[in-house]
């Protein structure tokens, strides 16, 4: 069992409408820049954040995002959690493999997984989902 990465900074942003999605996305982009992510890694994590924030807004009836700068001793990274109050993902494996339970829900999730180092989903039925992604800076 490894100790969790250390949090260097944390902030919480609301996701209520489409403008919030853009705000969250911009903030993730800024964090990536601050941490010295190369353009490909920055684009990947920002796009994943955009997908998940949009999901939280569109399918999740709104919620919030928690953005952290993290470190595991050797490298720095971003951890972003997207929490919504939605109906929850009934069939998680289906969604992860690219099937759609909503319009774009499936692709958004499985697509995002390929963009980040780690993606974890916690679902609370009957309502609420939290998707957490981790992307490390790379040499």
């Amino acid at each position, binding site marked *: 069992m490894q100790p969790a990465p250390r949090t260097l900074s944390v902030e919480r942003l609301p996701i209520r409408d489409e403008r919030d*999605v853009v705000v969250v*996305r911009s903030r993730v982009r800024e964090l990536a820049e601050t941490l010295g992510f190369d353009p*490909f890694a920055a684009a990947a994590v920002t796009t994943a954040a955009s997908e998940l924030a949009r999901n939280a807004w569109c399918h999740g009836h709104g919620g919030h995002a928690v953005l952290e700068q993290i470190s595991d001793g050797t490298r720095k990274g971003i951890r972003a959690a997207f929490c919504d109050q939605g109906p929850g993902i009934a069939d998680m494996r289906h969604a992860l493999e*690219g099937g759609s339970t909503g319009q774009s829900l499936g*692709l958004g999730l499985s*697509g995002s997984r390929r*963009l980040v180092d780690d993606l974890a989903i916690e679902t609370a039925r009957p309502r609420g989902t939290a998707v957490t992604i981790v992307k490390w800076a790379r040499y």
Partner: protein
Amino acid sequence: MRSGNPIPILRIKDTLLVTVEVDLHDRLAEAFQADMLATIERQGAAGLVIDISGLDIVDSYVARVLAETARMTSLMGAETVIVGMRPEVAATLVRMGYTMSGVRTALDVDAGLGLLSRGHGSSSA
């Protein structure tokens, strides 16, 4: 953002050139699409070049809007090319599984105009 015309459309002879520089979030994306189609309907155009070199992020939503718009305008007779995609955007899209096949692409505005003037080019290949 001026209402009704958020993204300027330029005309070069019978080709339209539109440069997308702002984040295409929902209402803006819908307006953009509507604008493009309305303009072509009104003025007619043989070609359309959509320059996305100003976009550093293209998520699945924006990708879909762009691809849809390109297909719609093509249907209306304006050969459409999407140009200027950034390397990191291209890499991210294909990693997500979005190849935007069926939409013509070119490196930049010059290449896009060249493609249209030649009357052929790499489409879904």
